[in-house]
């Protein structure tokens, strides 16, 4: 099977850095897939995307994008991909239209198709009313949308996006994802990095990066299903006492506050979750506390993230 993006044993060592930014980074993404890269800060997400987008070419191992080697034939890769760096990278003194025109021309959109293509992109990203505004005067969310429009204007087969939704309000984020869903529907392969776990859940495949290598890869359901833990959601008042009791309960693997509740991780083996729930119920009753919620919940991407990263950190 031909992959739209394939990286094999990529190692990237920055000069002067102790540990490599990427170590044996491997990834294979079939065409038409929306793939998300998640991982803690400094895991190497941006480095990996830069290598795949042919921005950086000093690494060992191999990587192909849209069927071309990123090092041997970067120009062929470049004419087939759209890339959106993490920081705003358009010209603030040019207007929305001028920026779009500039990248349409550079990326070789034929002259006769250009106006129609650009109009479509503006329509698609909802920027039509702002086409005369200077890019520097756009809001954060609109800047991201414009960057996305510029990355898509030449109809690339592969789209690489580095944290497109960071620093964007929830409404704009949702719109950004609606646009991405459209793009994917038209058969474009999308590789995206994101710090938001709810976004990761919307991807077809997720690669979890930790210290430069891919720890887990699969569909969100697969990954979550493979996790050897179950989760309890707890809410009791007073909160301080609730925390005390949870901390002192033996067998709890991890816990963290989510909103006004605590999310408690227990081992998967039979009866463990029930045992802890009974223990907590008894404890709360003994202290005369009111229990509002104490039930098992479906694990989410965020649980997987905390579980995996936590396990890695305990090991090292």
């Amino acid at each position, binding site marked *: 099977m031909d992959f739209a993006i394939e990286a094999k044993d990529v190692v990237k060592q920055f000069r002067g850095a102790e540990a490599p930014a990427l170590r044996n980074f491997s990834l294979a993404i079939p065409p038409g897939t929306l793939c998300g890269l998640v991982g803690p800060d400094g895991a190497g997400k941006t480095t990996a995307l*830069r290598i795949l*987008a*042919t*921005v*950086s070419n000093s690494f060992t191992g191999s990587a192909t994008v849209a069927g071309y080697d990123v090092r041997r034939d970067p*120009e062929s890769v*470049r*004419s087939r*991909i759209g*890339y959106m*760096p993490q*920081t*705003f*990278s*358009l*010209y*603030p*003194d*040019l207007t929305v239209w*001028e920026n779009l025109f*500039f*990248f349409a*021309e*550079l*990326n*070789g959109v034929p002259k006769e198709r250009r106006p129609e293509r650009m109009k479509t992109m503006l329509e698609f990203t909802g920027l039509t009313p702002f086409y005369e505004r200077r890019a520097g005067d756009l809001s954060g969310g609109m800047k991201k949308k414009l960057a996305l429009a*510029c990355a898509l204007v030449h109809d690339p087969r592969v789209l690489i996006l580095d944290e497109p939704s960071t620093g964007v309000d929830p409404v704009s984020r949702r719109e950004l994802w609606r646009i991405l869903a459209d793009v994917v529907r038209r058969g474009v392969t999308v590789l995206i990095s994101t710090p938001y776990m709810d976004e990761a859940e919307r991807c077809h495949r997720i690669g979890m990066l930790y210290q430069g290598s891919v720890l887990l890869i699969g569909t969100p359901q697969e990954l979550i299903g493979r996790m050897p833990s179950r989760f309890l959601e707890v809410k009791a008042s007073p909160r301080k006492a609730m925390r005390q009791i949870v901390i002192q309960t033996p067998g709890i693997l991890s816990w963290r506050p989510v909103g006004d509740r605590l999310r408690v991780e227990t081992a998967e083996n039979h009866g463990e979750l029930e045992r802890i729930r009974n223990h907590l119920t008894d404890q709360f009753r003994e202290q005369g506390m009111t229990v509002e919620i104490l039930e098992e919940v479906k694990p989410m991407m965020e649980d997987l993230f905390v579980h995996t990263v936590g396990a890695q950190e305990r090991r090292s």
Partner: protein
Amino acid sequence: MNHLITIMRKEVFHIWRDPRTLALILLLPAMLLILLGYGISGERNKIPLVIADLSKTDASRAYTQKFLVSDDFAWAYSALSEQELLDLLDRNEAEAAILIPPDFGESLDAGRTAKVQFYLNGSSDPTDMQTIQLKLNAIHQMAVQDLLTDKLSRSPLASSLSMPIESFSRVLYNPNSDQRWFMIPGLIPIILQVQALLLTALAIVREREQGTMEQLIVTPVKPWELMLGKIIPYLVVGVFNLFVLLILGYFLFGVGVTGSFWMLVALSVVFIIGSLGLGVLISNLAQSQMQAIYLSVFVILIPAIILSGLMFPRDNMPLLTYIYSMLLPVTHYLEIVRGIMVRGIGAESLWWTAIFPLIVISIGYFVASVLAFKKRI
């Protein structure tokens, strides 16, 4: 080719879009020429002079009068003692001083050699000081000569007396020794150099700093297209400024082009191309706009002002400094501009000394910059 035009158009937008940038680029060079052109007042005259005449005789008054009637010196103070005279020099109230000792008149009358003492401010520009010293000595010689002829005319040999040698000098090219004919043709190269170098270096480094370079790398634009597209608009700006400076030089300061105008323009284009190439080379070394400015100023611009021959002659430079000055395009260009504008000489006299080296190093820098320019962040 299409990419080249795309990049050029974008670069013109950058220049055109921001009125302040546009004003800086187009007006600042002209303003600088006006400021510096008027600032240079020409030759030193009316140098403030302190005289301490302790002799107070007719002879001493006649002697000091010779200095004061000349246009070179102006009476600033009369001091009553050597101490007062030194105080005045300390406080910068005067540039030079003459002390006439009490026995001046007596000695002259008795036929002995009288002595006078000159004081000069050694903390000022050495050439300036030397000029003042020469002027003092010249007037002094005249005074002595007058005294001698006076004496001799009263002797029996008077009738057969005449000056053995008389000299005449003719100043070529700039007969009135007008400082402007020296400075205006010197300022034009420096102004063009500053602009061509900084604008290109900054234009490229800015893309790196604002993150747009990362986006450009991922487009199929070729490095040479990107580079040429960025510098051609600045070549146009440079040529525009050249014309503005030449026009101002002529109409405001009366300094025209004595030699071939179009040869000057053609060689200016060569010079600007070389300077733009240097700018690109600097942008390759610099990660930020601040670094680009530092490199430009310290590696090229200050040496261009000091070593190019604008202010100091290059003949007596130590070898290393001399070689460095030869590597600066502005050194050769300065010689060409002065040659063509002031002396009106042509290619036949300038070819080996200035034109050929300018072409070689300008093309050299330009080719090097095209080869060294990489699409990278």
